[in-house]
């Protein structure tokens, strides 16, 4: 059985270049389990330009987190829309997570980078924070839709 937590309507960033939280999707305490998995599925739209747009997923014990607890991170320039997937799982304990360290727009493959790790206590409520930033303040970055799907495993 899976648990789905989704955004309700799109969110657009414009006018500021600082990393901004678009969505904080709450995972109820105790739902993931020691070996459960979380998929974060995202659909984005943004200004097609040479300026960088950055897409970030962070997993934390608080809603609205920016700047730490990375799960996935990438940037785009001269395209207009994107579909991303970030996957992380508890690593045989309820307070240690691991995820593939690469571009959320290429979630399967190989990487020379070490995996991302986090230490969020999932016996309490936790949050998948979807963040982004724009290099050109006059441009836009929109999270059109996102859904977190939890696949619990004890």
């Amino acid at each position: 059985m899976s648990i789905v937590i989704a955004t309700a309507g799109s969110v657009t960033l414009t006018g500021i270049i600082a990393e901004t939280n678009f969505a904080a999707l709450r995972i109820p305490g105790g739902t993931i389990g020691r070996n459960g998995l979380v998929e974060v599925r995202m659909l984005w739209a943004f200004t097609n330009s040479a300026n960088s747009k950055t897409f970030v997923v962070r997993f934390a014990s608080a809603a609205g987190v920016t700047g730490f607890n990375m799960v996935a991170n990438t940037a785009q320039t001269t395209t207009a829309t994107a579909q991303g997937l970030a996957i992380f799982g508890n690593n045989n304990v309820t307070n240690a997570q691991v995820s593939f360290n690469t571009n959320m727009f290429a979630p399967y493959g190989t990487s020379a980078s070490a995996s991302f790790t986090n230490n969020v206590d999932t016996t309490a409520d936790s949050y998948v924070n979807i963040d982004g930033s724009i290099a050109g303040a006059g441009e836009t970055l929109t999270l059109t839709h996102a859904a977190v799907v939890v696949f619990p495993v004890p």
Partner: protein
Amino acid sequence: MSIMVATQGQVSVTGTTSVTNVAALRVPANSVGRNGHVEIKALVNFTNSANNKVLGIRWGTTAGATSGAPATFGTFNTAATAQVLAAYRNNNATNAQVSYNATTIVPFGSTANALSAGAIDTTVDSWINLDLQLALGTETIILVHAYAVVFPSS
């Protein structure tokens, strides 16, 4: 809780260059919700040649439809098998969809294309139609297996 609908046995198309429906996976009325999404994964075999072979995945109000939106496509030629993924998301309404508008062979990534939109009423039964088409009628394309998973969200 997610809902899964799958094909039962493979279906082959040969001898025609018309678009042919080979599967219609029913999405039960009201199962998606305003912010839910549907993922479709399919495995296909086909003649390895320079001629195009196409798998279209359409969400429609009728079973067996070979036209209409939202739709996404995978076009295959000099290979023999493929595995594809399509995702359709209700966009904060039960009768409005949005989806990534690029080949289903590379379901995650970015593109210069705008997102695709649909207007399927999901408060009644709807269907994920899988359609095949050959450019050369003497060749073959086979839908080996496909399944749709509904991830509801209100």
